[in-house]
């Protein structure tokens, strides 16, 4: 490391304790219970009698430093300079003085950051990079999230759902985030096999690695225009994109055929029912930027039907379990297609292996 004698490495993250509100430091591990006095507001009560108030606001996650500084200013003004972000990318201000709650809420709302996301509400949509930063994306992330949240914003600022409703979006099958276990998942998908760049493939990738990358064995070696390359057996390709991750000469992106799919009924928590995967609701919706109205409509429709029909404390998947999938398709008006029927590894277990039927 030569001349840079003062270069620091492997120092890890700063210790969190430095950033904790004094009330939190004092009552660490001593919290007794909490209340949820209003949407976006939590009050945690300690065994010592101390209270800490949380005000949560929605964030686009993609933040300019200007906005980060705004959050810092608000924290200085209302929460002693203490704030945090949540596992779903909301921002939370930690207050010891309840009198600051109302002005902080107003300041946030005025600045365009809705307060909410707590309790039986829709919280922020966990999402990924999309066209803002990722080569692999079949769709944008931020644009759809913005469009969907615009339509569902009341469900963020109010707590009028039967249970928590978690939406997530991933822009390709890599599924960065916990998309596969969401009440509603919006997933970018490709639908055509990679278009092999025969001119460069041999230069930028190892052919055996490319061949080995394919889970279905759809790739085989080939000589094209005298150059060693590979070919893809189109009908064996399930558009997983693994070959593209491994080799840049195998792009899958295709403006005509890329788009979205919608999945429902997954969950993460162990509350009541076990964690479970989201299941296919809508196999394909075309990309329609800038506001993806078909995706927005599809999500809003599912949320509405769920909100009207589920019982208290029933998550999306628990509701569908109770009423059965045929009823879900009937109520939502979503078409049931051949694509809904699993044909992957454990497919047989998803067939209806009983005579339990509703008519």
């Amino acid at each position, binding site marked *: 490391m030569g001349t840079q004698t003062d270069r620091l490495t492997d120092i890890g993250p700063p210790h969190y304790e430095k950033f904790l509100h004094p009330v939190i430091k004092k009552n660490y591990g001593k919290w007794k219970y909490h209340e949820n006095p209003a949407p976006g507001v939590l009050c945690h009560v300690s065994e010592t009698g101390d209270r800490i108030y949380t005000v949560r606001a929605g964030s686009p996650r993609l933040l300019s430093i200007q906005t980060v500084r705004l959050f810092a200013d608000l924290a200085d003004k209302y929460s002693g300079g203490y704030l945090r972000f949540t596992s779903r990318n909301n921002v939370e201000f930690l207050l010891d003085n309840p009198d600051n709650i109302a002005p902080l809420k107003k300041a946030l709302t005025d600045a365009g950051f809705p307060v909410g996301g707590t309790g039986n509400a829709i919280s922020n949509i966990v999402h990924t990079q999309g066209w803002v930063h990722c080569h692999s994306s079949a769709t944008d992330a931020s644009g759809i999230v913005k469009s969907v949240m615009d339509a569902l914003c009341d469900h963020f600022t109010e707590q009028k759902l039967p249970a928590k409703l978690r939406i997530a979006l991933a822009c390709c099958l890599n599924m960065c985030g916990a998309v596969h276990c969401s009440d509603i998942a919006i997933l970018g998908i490709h639908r055509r096999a990679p278009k092999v760049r025969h001119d460069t493939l041999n230069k930028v990738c190892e052919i055996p690695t490319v061949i080995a990358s394919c889970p279905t064995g759809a790739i085989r070696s080939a000589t094209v225009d005298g150059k060693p390359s590979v070919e893809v057996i189109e009908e064996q390709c399930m558009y997983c994109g693994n070959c593209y991750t491994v080799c840049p000469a195998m792009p899958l992106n295709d403006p005509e055929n890329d788009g979205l799919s919608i999945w429902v009924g997954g969950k993460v928590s162990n509350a009541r029912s076990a964690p479970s995967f989201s299941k296919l609701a809508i196999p394909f919706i075309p990309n329609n930027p800038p506001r993806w109205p078909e995706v927005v409509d599809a999500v809003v429709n599912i949320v509405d039907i769920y909100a009207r029909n589920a019982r208290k404390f029933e998550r999306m998947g628990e509701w569908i379990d109770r009423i059965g999938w045929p009823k879900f398709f009937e109520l939502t008006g979503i078409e049931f297609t051949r694509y809904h029927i699993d044909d992957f590894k454990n497919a047989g277990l998803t067939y209806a*292996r009983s005579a339990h039927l509703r008519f």
Partner: protein
Amino acid sequence: MADQKYPTPLLDELEKGPWPSFVKEIKAAAKAKPTAEDLLGQLELSYEEKISHWKHGGIVGVMGYGGGVIGRYSDVPEKFPNVSHFHTLRVNHPSGWFYTSDVLRKLCDIWEAHGSDLTNFHGSTGDIILLGTKTDELEPTFNDLTKLGFDLGGSGSVMRTPSACVGQARCEWACYDTMALCNDLTHLYQDELHRPAFPYKFKFKCSGCPNDCVASIARADLSIIGTWKDDIQQDDAAVSEYAAAGLDIQKDVCDRCPTKCMDWDGKKLSINNRECVRCMHCINVMPKALRPGKEKGATLLIGAKAPILQGALLSSVLIPFVPADELLETLKELVSRIWDFWGEYGNNRERVGELIQRIGMSAFLDAIGLDPVPEMISAPRDNPYIFFQGEDVAEGTAEDEEVQNEATVKETK
């Protein structure tokens, strides 16, 4: 046991105890039949050595048939010459396994004339099993059987003898005539039953209601399970009688209903029939008060089998509801499409359930011309690996389209 040819100290232990003894049965037969006598000897040897003394298969049969007889040879014929051949005949049973004393005696007479005097009432598939005879007795036995009106069942890559629960003959819950359907299917497919033309075996079983008393969902390639479409028939007076007699309707009925669609307020039982999944529990518990609805028919399910090779399968829903009077016609149509496709695409020794596992249910539905309905699945796929079809994807060249339509039937792992 001085008059026994071979001492059987181990088997003798199995004459003790309250349950009827198969050893007593073999000994009874052994009094008249050297075959049964030698079976006893060889079986005692197996008990000593903890191993079967039968050799692997051997193709024997009756003229013009490709199945119905299981060839069996001893691997110690020098010791037990009378079981050097010990083939069994599988004989179609009458639907519901009903007999008269008269016909049973005639069957016994035939077997006394040609075989070991030993039988199974019945084999696991449902056939009458005539257990053990020599090759040259097969044809004469067959001739006597057909004269009595009986025919052989299946073995090998054929349709097997269908079976049916007692159904409308003695059960109040039968939603269609299981015995008639079983009989019709057996007669309809005589050729498929007797002449191997399939990739592997194919079994039908007919249960009159979801209690499934012939275990069709566990062991029939085509399971036909009776059900109803309208509301459970309810007799409120009889409900009250059960309650008065001490049945805890809340705990034993409502709380055990899988969809919790029943409500008992202490006086009146209300069923939300749109939520009911026809599990039968409440009907089973209160047969006098509740009965299946009036709009009766059956659910057709496909694909059950034992574990060889890819693990056991339960049948899964293929057609949620067929009205009782359309069952035979629907089945005829459907089965011919299934057999055509399976015959062409099924690998050797691949049951239809395994074929579906291999190519995917959707491709199978395409092939037999059935539309997918959500009743076929317990849940939609949770993996994103969708093979989109050529016609659903834009911008394919003409060539591409062709490839993709062909590709309906393709293999995943």
